[in-house]
């Protein structure tokens, strides 16, 4: 039986990968992908806590499904924004999107 901590370690690793991607990548699409990784790391956390600690109630699963839904929506919106920016500025580099700069 695989203990809970393994899952948690996996999830933390995955989160860190995602976080690194978000913070370090230049491509906005890659940043989005990093966010997806972080969300899914959280999902793993949720599912494993549910499974190991309180399998009688469905809350963990339900929460995960909601997160997935949010992630899908977020990806759709994010990609749409990126496409829109690309059409206007001909770039998907996050550093070029500095309209809000002082």
């Amino acid at each position: 039986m695989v203990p809970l901590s393994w899952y948690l370690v996996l999830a933390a690793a995955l989160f860190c990968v995602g976080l690194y991607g978000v913070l370090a990548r230049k491509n906005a699409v890659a940043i989005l992908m990093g966010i997806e990784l972080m969300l899914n790391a959280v999902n793993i956390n949720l599912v494993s806590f549910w499974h190991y600690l309180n399998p009688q109630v469905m809350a963990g699963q339900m929460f995960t499904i909601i997160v997935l839904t949010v992630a899908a929506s977020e990806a759709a919106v994010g990609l749409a924004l990126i496409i829109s920016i690309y059409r206007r500025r001909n770039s998907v580099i996050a550093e070029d999107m500095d309209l809000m700069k002082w």
Partner: protein
Amino acid sequence: MFLTPLVAQQLTWLIPLPPLLSFALIVLFTNRSKLLSHTLAIGLMAVSWVISWVVFFNTLTITNFGGLAAVIQNAVPWLPFGSAAVGTQPLSMGVLVDPLTGLMLFFVPLACLLIFIYSVGYSNFGLPREAHDVPGTPPHGVEPLYSRFFAYLSLFAFGMLLLVVADNLLLLFVGWEIMGLCSYLLIGFWYARNYADPKQITPRQAAVKAFMTTRVGDMFMMLGIVYLYSQAGTLSFRDILYNRDVLAHLASAPSIIVGLTVSHVVGLLLFAGTVGKSAQFPLHVWLPDAMEGPTPVSAMIHAATMVSAGVYAMIRMFPLLSAGWVPGGALTPPMLAMAIIGSFTALFAATIAMTQSDIKKVLAYSTISQLGFMIASLGIGAYVAAAFHLVTHAFFKALLFLGSGSVIHGVEHGHHETEHSAAPAAEHGAEHAAAPFDPQNMFNMGGLAKRMPLTYWTFVIGGFALAGFPLVTAGFWSKDEILAESFAHAPAVFIVLGLAALMTAFYTMRQISLTFLGQPRSPAVEHATEHEPIFRPMLLALVVLSFFAVAAGWVGIPEHFPVIGGLVPNWIESYSVGGLLERPEALAFSYWPLLTSLVVALGGLLLGWWVYRGYQLGQADPLEAPLGPLYTLLRNKYYFDELYDFLFVRPVYWIAETFVSVWIDKGVIDGTLHLIGRAALRLGDIFRNDFDLPVVNGFGDLVGKSVNRFGRTFRVIQTGKVQQYLLVLMAIIVVLGAVLLLPGLR
């Protein structure tokens, strides 16, 4: 009577209205058309005249006219504020024609109408408008304010007719005041006129002077009316004056002044009103200066309307003034005042008239003097004589004024002509200003009899009537009656009036000699004329008036007069006493007053002719040497203007300009206000500088500036790089997480 009473009443209501209508129409609609305006004014005045004469001649056919229920009277309620508790009746507005009103209706509308007609010529109707005529100055072409002139005249006539037909004292007072206003407007008609000599009174000032002076009298008169109303309970003439009970009550009831009864106090107050209106001493000063108005106005004021109104009011109130007096007994205080002031004024004004050089000023003082005759005769109880003289005087004085206007016009015309021939037209205005020619100065005239024959003859008729030329002129009969009455009742008055009559004849002849006889004494007079078309209406008025100046006397020939007495019934006597309760007895004939009349009239005329027969240009007035310093005194009108200036005008100016304006208004009131203002300003400064600016504004600015600085400082973190934000977010989460989760850091 050929009118039914109802028709007569209604016609009487209509008498004053046509002039009012023409005033309104001219002011509102026709003032742009000179022709239409004067047609309206004259036409409607003629309507008024016709109605008046119909009513008047109707009264001749009423039996016992003036007696109980034998007058034309009609009244409607007007001001319902009487109260039965204090015994006063509501005020009514109504008309009354009794013998006295009848007499007034005989001459007032006729004289007004003739003056209106005269004004057409006098205002140069028919001449073109001259370019350099300024509105409000005497014109050379047609009067620029022609329509306005006729509007004012109409209103004036309305005021007089209203006063004449009024059946109560209040309505009479209304007409009285309307005339006061109109005299102001008309005396100041040439409001823009200025003289080179700053001491010479301008029409503007003369208008104010007339208005203010008569106002003094009016004030007393109003007090008298109010007092009478409070005591008698009514202001209706017939209720008071034709009622023995009321008169007896008023004559015996003690008044607010100890020693005088109500009728005395009321009489004296009303007489004060007449003193102002009829220019008796000491309120006579306005009338000579009223000559600044156009001449038809002078005729209007001094003959037909205004000054007659004062005497009319006195004759009207005579039963009240004489209440308690029995013929031959002691005079009542109001009568005594009238006898003294009247006779004094008659003499006093006559002396001044002897030395005046202005043709109109002589007539002005003669008016004052003749009014004095009337007042004095009323004062000694000679009711009929006063009324008679009022009528004849109106005719011959109107005639004289209009004649003098014609003279002035003719001389001005001649002056215009000589100037035009002497100087090119371009220099006209400048020369005019440099050498002012006085067309009214009699010493510049002479010989006008040949240049203006018709004016001359009418003027002689008027002058002889004024002087009382025996038998043929109206003035003789009326003045003779006054003298006869005073001879019988008050010898002192007789002597004074006789002297005044002598002077009257003298200054009249002096005027005629200087103006018409001898040789012309200036080029303007040599060219004077009366043959221009504009003189036609003027001469028409003169001729009609001169007829009445002669004929008006025939109705009053005493019955016992030698030779011609009784040929014509003494109509004026029998007619005018009709309105009196106590009819005076006819005077027994005496030769003394008649002889006096003859002597003073003829002697004065002869003396006047003799003294002035050879007067040459540049000579001093022949009176100057024999009279010496007295001449200067008379010439300066006893310095009354100066005295009043010193006693009243300057103190009032001082009170107004120094006391009230400088001290009270600018000193105390303005000072206080300025103090409050300065204090408020100071307080405001303190608030502003020491509180508002540093505290309120400082705080507000500080907040703003702080926010600004804060923003400036921190805006650098807005890099616009999303990953940096995330990094910061991360760091914060890590720190927060550490703080929250690690127990050691809590």
